[in-house]
């Protein structure tokens, strides 16, 4: 049986950059998100700041690379630099800035930016993941 490919700690390239496809944030995304969470937009046409972040996780699966073998999403920091509006088209660019090997797996720190259709970085932050090592053959 062929198992889907995975990207292990050993495969992660330090300073490797990954760009996702873009997507347009619509009123439907905001309505569905606000209904699900009750985290409402501050004014009509605004996009709650956590929503683009959530969308970048899905976009991160649509890149020409197998998914990272994440054991745990440990934490992150996030900065909203400028507002995102309904109708904006965003993508994310991420870069591995730290790799630290541990006994079981390794810690990977990734910088992520959310970029809009004008090329402006609207949100950015740093994510810390615990990633599995390649199982012994």
């Amino acid at each position, binding site marked *: 049986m062929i198992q889907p490919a995975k990207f292990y700690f050993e495969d992660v390239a330090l300073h490797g950059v990954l760009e996702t496809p873009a997507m347009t944030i619509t009123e439907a995304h905001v309505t569905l998100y606000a209904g*699900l969470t009750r985290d409402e937009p*501050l004014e009509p046409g605004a996009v709650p700041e956590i929503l683009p972040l959530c969308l970048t*996780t899905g976009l991160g699966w649509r890149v020409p690379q197998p998914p990272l073998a994440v054991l745990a999403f440990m934490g992150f920091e996030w900065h909203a630099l400028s507002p995102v509006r309904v109708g904006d088209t965003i993508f994310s660019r991420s870069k591995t800035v730290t790799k630290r090997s541990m006994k079981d797996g390794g810690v990977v720190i990734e910088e992520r930016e959310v970029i809009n259709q004008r090329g402006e970085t609207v949100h950015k932050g740093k994510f810390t993941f615990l990633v599995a090592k390649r199982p012994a053959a």
Partner: protein
Amino acid sequence: MTDPRRFFDDIQVGEEYESPGRTVTETDIVIFAGLSGDYNILHTDAEFMKSSLFGERIAHGLLGLAIQAGLFTRATQPYATLAFVGLRWKFKGPIKIGDTIRVRAKVTVKKETSKGDRGVVTVERTVLNQRDEVVQEGETDLMVERRPA
């Protein structure tokens, strides 16, 4: 009509709030997977997850964060928020289907900005489950309007 929102001047360092609880359901996780496009097996494959460390599907970490943001708005009168500035966040434990989470929050810092009409309020937040275990915690910075003169 008086503005029911709480301005930068009204909010005091040391204030604490606790939100109502909310039970996280399978439906929440399915909708969040559809909305975000994050179909990681951790959240979507019940059979695979039986043999995992968690024993069952768990909620997306960011779903917990987003639900917490909604619960916070039910914990206190709304702030006169102009913008969300940023956050620092840690995922401490899984949120499983049927878990009831709530947020406990405390205002830790108030910082005036160079613009006189607003300030940054830092709120420390702890997300607890029904067993009072901390599942997520962190700090959020909000830009809040000053009371108009």
